[in-house]
């Protein structure tokens, strides 16, 4: 059975953001954060242009706290940034509008939320060094409102048709079979629970190394599509038996408790109408035209 969507009814709206700066709290605040054992650390975190980490790379091992691969953008006013954050969808095209890297094209690979509220964009590495802080990047957003015919209980969010149509999703026995690299049990979901699922990130927890091994999470890569069990992200993120969500790994692991790799949630349903199909190739770098 062929999958049909309302793609031709979606509205294509431009949203803009500027390449943002790293931020730290000023004195007298200490610059350190605490790792899950209470040890202070000081490492790069969200925002800015990250030159040497890209989608497709490991989500672990970096000397960083939940770093965003590629380029992160933000709109200066809060309302405008909310527009950017909600309407941008993973897989949407992003174009640099000024500066030395003007006209270079990339794609949205994730979102970050609650504290940083940024959109994460992949550009190939040789373009990144020409991008300046504050350069303007335009996203031709498309995807909010996406629905799948005969699967009205499935909420799509931050999901562009550009990526949905490449995810190799099949219908079998009236259920969606969705290729993913990993299955995340609900007890390993951490930061992001209880917050909005339309923007921002929901983090996997990684402090229990035995559980990490058990669920084979150590080889997670940025850009992997994963399945979250018993989690309903239809409106806000929360536990619900039989519910499920699909997310993409948007940012790396971090040392803080509750802050493992972040997921941008793309689909969710309260009922048992979508099942995971394990496939190690379920990564955005294999779905879109990708240059490292």
């Amino acid at each position: 059975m062929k999958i049909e969507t309302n793609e031709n009814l979606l509205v294509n709206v431009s949203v803009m953001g500027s390449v943002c700066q790293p931020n730290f709290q000023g004195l007298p605040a200490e610059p350190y954060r605490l790792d899950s054992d209470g040890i202070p650390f000081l490492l790069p975190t969200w925002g800015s242009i990250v030159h040497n980490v890209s989608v497709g790379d490991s989500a672990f091992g970096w000397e960083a706290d939940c770093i965003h691969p590629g380029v992160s953008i933000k709109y200066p006013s809060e309302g405008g940034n909310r527009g950017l954050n909600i309407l941008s969808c993973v897989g949407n095209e992003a174009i640099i509008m000024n500066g030395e890297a003007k006209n270079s094209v990339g794609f949205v690979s994730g979102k970050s939320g609650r504290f940083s509220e940024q959109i994460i964009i992949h550009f190939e590495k040789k373009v990144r060094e020409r991008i300046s802080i504050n350069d303007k990047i335009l996203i031709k957003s498309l995807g909010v409102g996406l629905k799948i015919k005969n699967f009205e209980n499935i909420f799509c969010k931050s999901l562009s048709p550009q990526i949905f149509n490449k995810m190799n999703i099949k219908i079998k026995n009236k259920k969606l079979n969705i290729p993913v690299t990993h299955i995340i049990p609900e007890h390993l979901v951490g930061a992001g629970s209880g917050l909005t699922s339309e923007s921002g990130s929901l983090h996997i927890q990684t402090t229990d190394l035995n559980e990490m091994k058990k669920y084979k999470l150590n080889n997670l890569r940025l850009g992997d599509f994963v399945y979250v069990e018993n989690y309903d992200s239809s409106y806000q993120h929360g536990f619900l038996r039989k519910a499920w969500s699909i997310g993409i790994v948007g940012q790396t692991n971090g040392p803080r408790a509750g802050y493992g790799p972040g997921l941008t949630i793309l689909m969710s349903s309260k009922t048992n109408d979508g099942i995971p199909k394990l496939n190690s190739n379920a990564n955005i770098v294999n779905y879109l035209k990708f240059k490292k």
Partner: protein
Amino acid sequence: MISNLKTNEKNLIKMSIGGFATQPSFKNPGYIPNNDGQAVIYPGMFGVVNNIKVGDNAFGWAGDHVEPGVSIDSENPNEHFALHYLVCTGNKAIVRSGEAKGAIGIVTGEHARNLIHFENKILDKICIGDQIDIITHGRGLKLLDFPNIEIKKIDPKLLKSLFLKIVKKKLIVDVAIELPIRIMGSGAELNSEYVDQDLMSGDRALMKKLKIDQMKLGDLIAINHADHRWGRSYKKDYVSIAICIHGDSVMSGHGPGIMTIMTGKKKDLSWKINKKANIKNLLKIKI
């Protein structure tokens, strides 16, 4: 340089951050009290200092806290602190706006602003307010064979360029000058990830006797019994290695500034005097 020095360099993040060439600034009426209470007025901090470079004398200028080269900052407080916590000495700087757009410089240290060296022909073209981005690289750097030595704010390429030796499992770093702990002053009130600490140059006779008055901007420095892991304090048998980043001061409790790059216990970390241990030589900085 030790060819087999093991580091975690491949796991470090390279991240851009932007700052702006600053305008010299004074608090009304502009005077500061010198060691004898006389009111004096001197340039040196902020701005583009055209004629004093890394490698030049730290003492003797008609200036106060002279910051060599271009001092950059952001007026947004959170970005200001990010500049201080992420930028490392030896990082690449790129001018992003104005007449010098595209020109490349190098970070030579951190005072209340980040200090960038550019060649003279580029300095001539830099205007106050020009945006200068830095590709930060070095935060989180570790020596894998010396887990108890903490590395702070140096680009991996500066670490590799240092004159180092390992003798009986102890890391020996070549430095130009040793400073006695009792002359370490302003900066003790700050966390050791932020700005620098001044040596107190008020005892001019001692400066001369110990030849500290011959110190150069960019010199590597050792301080015995200084623990700079979480602050800047006296602790017996700890050693801190630093870089001289700004010039002398006339104010009590102040003097040339040093910025920490390594700190650890004496059993792991020591130093050897070598007059050539200056970042101008180590990073082959063109003047």
